[in-house]
């Protein structure tokens, strides 16, 4: 019985329906009309604020135009309901579409520059509201406002005050479910990865501009819906309802609730709306208070008050369930690499062929006419002294640098000069010299981000959890479980990825590359900073990549490691190809010894040398 109850409670859709129904009961359990109005306003402003959280908290771009989009929603809804067709469903859809379009149009130029330009452009939208409204003349009522918006009707049935209340709660609840699914799903992860590092995101196949624009335009939808509801609230809207004060209020609410929070939005908005009600007589000081709040919260509370609350809640839950926890089995299974190999697919075998690449930076030649070839199912090591062009080569292949001349071909596809995200989607995965670990993302999601380019991260899939999306998640989770346990990451899966120490970060990058299942893998000094047991995991992981048919290109300084691992070695010096051959040939190559390895290289050894027999 309690097990069934527990299962039911873990179904968030059921909880959602129950919570929504409970809030809908408001008018019938004795809430006063003042309170009902407060709840309605909090719901509307929360809709708008959730949009800010999506584009800013997750997308990382601060746009201040929510009040303007709110106005667009309100005017579109008001006009249509008054003059054309008063049906909530039609009106809501049109208001949402109009808001989305405004987001799209203003996002394109603003996002190109980002930062301040986007903030200013979107801020100016708010300033423009009155003159744009006036542009339509008497149609929208000009500066004095649009009056006489009828009460909402649904399928021809008019809604009374209580009906309108339920409408507001249902619309808000529905959007927050969509919002929750989006940010907790793949789409949200792709945004957080992008927010932390555009470089990383594009190397995973995410097109930064498209993702940011999508987030920004989708974020306009709740603002449009909020505006739609607002126009029905009093049946009257005027340009000065959508002022600077509203913009500041929304921003402050987002900061107080936490820019990456979901339900914290309600908390933030409620706090600010109540402040506004309470200081009513001192309205004049509210602006000062909001300003102070922005400064203080901007400096002190980077995540708002919500994390403190949820930490408290978690502690409470732990406190009450600590006795039960003990009886649960805590058996951790460790998959072996051979088991993992069974879960992962063979990747398409494609050779990586680099033909006479040259690249110089302002007259400094970093690469001069370098050609190399890496075969599928083999590990090709790229070695050379510092500054010999190894990382430059990786950056040219993965599209971060444009070569001055030369060609890069993967299988039968030329990838020269493609943008990084397209190179990634073409089948090139990579790690970074300094591991790139996104912030605010769990270890599990950070590993899974390796599949962002190959699996759909569209907001629609995430929002509505389509069958295709669910299948993809299921398949990806199998890969994740297996890869994580083979690499010893299972105990950390729920941790915050950015809290990991260096060695584990490198292992995480390997896991991310493994899960990604790209044809060609570029590994940039993956062994540095690893301890002995991590090195063993690294060796197994790289061999697994090879066995899956990947074309592995390994940049490495530790020649012992190269000797154990590599099938072929390419040596660069001063941006030129110095030598090429098997590890043993290179170890005795006179020029390589002279310029890089030193005389003792052939026999010198770390303790890795003992395991020289090749697997």
């Amino acid at each position, binding site marked *: 019985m309690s097990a069934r109850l527990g299962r039911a409670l873990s179904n968030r859709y059921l909880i959602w329906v129950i919570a929504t129904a409970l809030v809908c009961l408001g008018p019938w359990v004795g809430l006063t009309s003042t309170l009902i109005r407060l709840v309605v306003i909090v719901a509307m402003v929360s809709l708008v604020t959730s949009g800010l959280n999506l584009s800013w908290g997750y997308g990382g771009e601060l746009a201040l135009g929510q009040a303007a989009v709110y106005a667009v929603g309100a005017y579109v809804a008001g006009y249509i309901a008054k003059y054309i067709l008063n049906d909530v469903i039609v009106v809501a859809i049109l208001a949402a579409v109009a808001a989305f379009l405004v987001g799209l149009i203003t996002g394109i130029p603003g996002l190109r520059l980002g930062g301040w330009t986007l903030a200013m452009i979107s801020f100016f939208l708010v300033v423009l509201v009155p003159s744009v409204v006036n542009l339509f003349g008497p149609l929208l009522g000009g500066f004095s406002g649009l009056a006489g918006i009828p009460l909402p009707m649904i399928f021809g049935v008019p809604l009374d005050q209580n009906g309108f209340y339920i409408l507001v709660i249902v619309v808000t609840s529905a959007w927050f479910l969509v919002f929750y699914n989006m940010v907790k799903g793949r789409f949200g992860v792709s945004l957080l990865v992008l927010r932390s590092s555009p470089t990383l995101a594009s190397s995973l196949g995410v097109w930064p501009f498209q993702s940011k624009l999508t987030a920004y335009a989708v974020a306009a939808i709740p603002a449009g819906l909020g505006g739609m509801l607002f126009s029905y609230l009093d049946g009257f809207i005027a340009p000065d309802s959508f002022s600077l004060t509203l913009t500041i209020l929304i921003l402050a609410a987002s900061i107080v609730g936490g820019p990456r929070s979901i339900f914290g939005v309600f908390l933030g908005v409620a706090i600010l709306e109540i402040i506004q009600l309470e200081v009513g007589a001192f309205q*004049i*000081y509210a602006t000062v208070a909001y300003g102070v709040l922005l400064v203080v919260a901007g400096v002190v509370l980077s995540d708002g008050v919500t994390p403190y609350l949820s930490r408290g809640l978690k502690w409470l839950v732990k406190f009450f369930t600590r006795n039960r926890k003990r009886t649960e089995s805590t058996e951790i299974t460790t998959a072996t690499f051979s088991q993992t190999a069974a879960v992962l697919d063979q990747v398409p075998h494609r050779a990586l062929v680099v033909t006479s690449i040259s690249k110089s930076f302002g007259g400094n030649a970093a690469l001069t006419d370098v050609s190399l070839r890496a075969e599928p199912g083999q590990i090709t090591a790229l070695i050379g002294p510092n500054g010999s062009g190894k990382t430059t080569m990786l950056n040219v292949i993965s599209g971060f640098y444009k070569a001055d001349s030369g060609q890069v071909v993967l299988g039968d596809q030329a990838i020269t000069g493609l943008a990084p995200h397209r190179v990634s989607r073409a089948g090139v995965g990579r790690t970074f010299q300094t591991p790139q670990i996104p912030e605010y993302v769990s270890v599990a999601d950070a590993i899974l981000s390796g599949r962002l380019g190959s699996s759909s991260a569209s907001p629609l899939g995430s929002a509505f959890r389509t069958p295709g999306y669910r299948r993809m998640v299921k398949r990806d989770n199998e890969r994740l479980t297996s890869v994580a346990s083979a690499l010893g990451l299972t105990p950390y899966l729920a941790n915050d990825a950015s809290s990991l120490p260096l060695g584990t970060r490198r292992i995480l990058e390997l896991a991310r590359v493994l899960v990604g299942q790209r044809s060609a893998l570029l590994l940039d000094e993956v062994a540095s900073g690893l301890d002995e047991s991590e090195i063993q995991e690294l060796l197994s992981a790289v061999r697994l990549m090879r066995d899956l048919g990947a074309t592995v290109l390994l940049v490495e300084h530790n020649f012992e490691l190269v000797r154990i691992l590599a099938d072929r070695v390419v040596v660069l010096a001063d941006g030129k190809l110095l030598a090429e051959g098997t590890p043993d040939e290179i170890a005795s190559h006179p020029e390589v010894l002279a310029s890089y390895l030193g005389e003792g290289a052939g026999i010198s050894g770390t303790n890795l040398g003992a395991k020289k027999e090749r697997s």
Partner: protein
Amino acid sequence: MTILISGLSVGAIYALIAIGYNITYLAAGVINFAFANFVMLGVFAWLVVTGFSLPSVIGLVVTIAIFAVLGVIEERVAIRPLPIGRHAELITTLGVGTVLTGLITVIWGTNPLPVKPVVDGGFQFLGAIVTWNDVLLVGAASVAAVVLYFVLRHTRLGLAATALNQDRTAAILRGVDSRRIAVIAFAFALGYAALIAPVVGNQTFADVGAPLTLAIKGFFALTIGGIGSNLGALVGGFAVGIIEALAARYVGGEFQDLFVFVLFLLFVFLRPSGIIGQRALRTV
């Protein structure tokens, strides 16, 4: 001609604001969104100062000193604690601006008050009336741009700021004291805000509602000229002012903002690095 004069005169204000942004941008890497609000606070301060019987110059000097201190405080409170490179100053300086808006409203209310010109009168020029204040505005913007241009290239402080702007880490490793420079820049920028306030105020009135559009159009001027370039800010300011005056004359006063906005969007789309700037397009 009248259009040109009014365009230049309004444009000079945008240029002055843009230059104010540039001072902190170049030295501390942050744009102070509250700058226009500080200018407006300076205008109200000027009203107070001219109300006393002592010479206005002394009052102005005292105001400048007080504003410099405010600059130090703003840097300490709203800039220094922030992580670098997250644009967190967008929020905190907007907060400072909001506080100023609130304070001005509390003290002086929301009705615009007229500000007497520093130099009365004007003259006829090719059929247009030019006030001395117009001349002062254009002169002030030009002088500010030129002075800053030389400060950045020929003084130790300016060179240090330029170095910080180009490569922060390298400059700090070379011994440039980035914090000292940031504090000096904020003090300097706000002192400058107080200095230009009397001339600006004659055109804008002492109006708590004015800074918002000034802040945004000053930023447009900055972007059009190229962020970081003072001569660009001058050109950008005049460009925005003249376009606005033309729009007001030929399209109608209520559409001038819309017109400026659309042109600005087009400009950003076509030439994101500005007329003079060399800033690389973000690899978004």
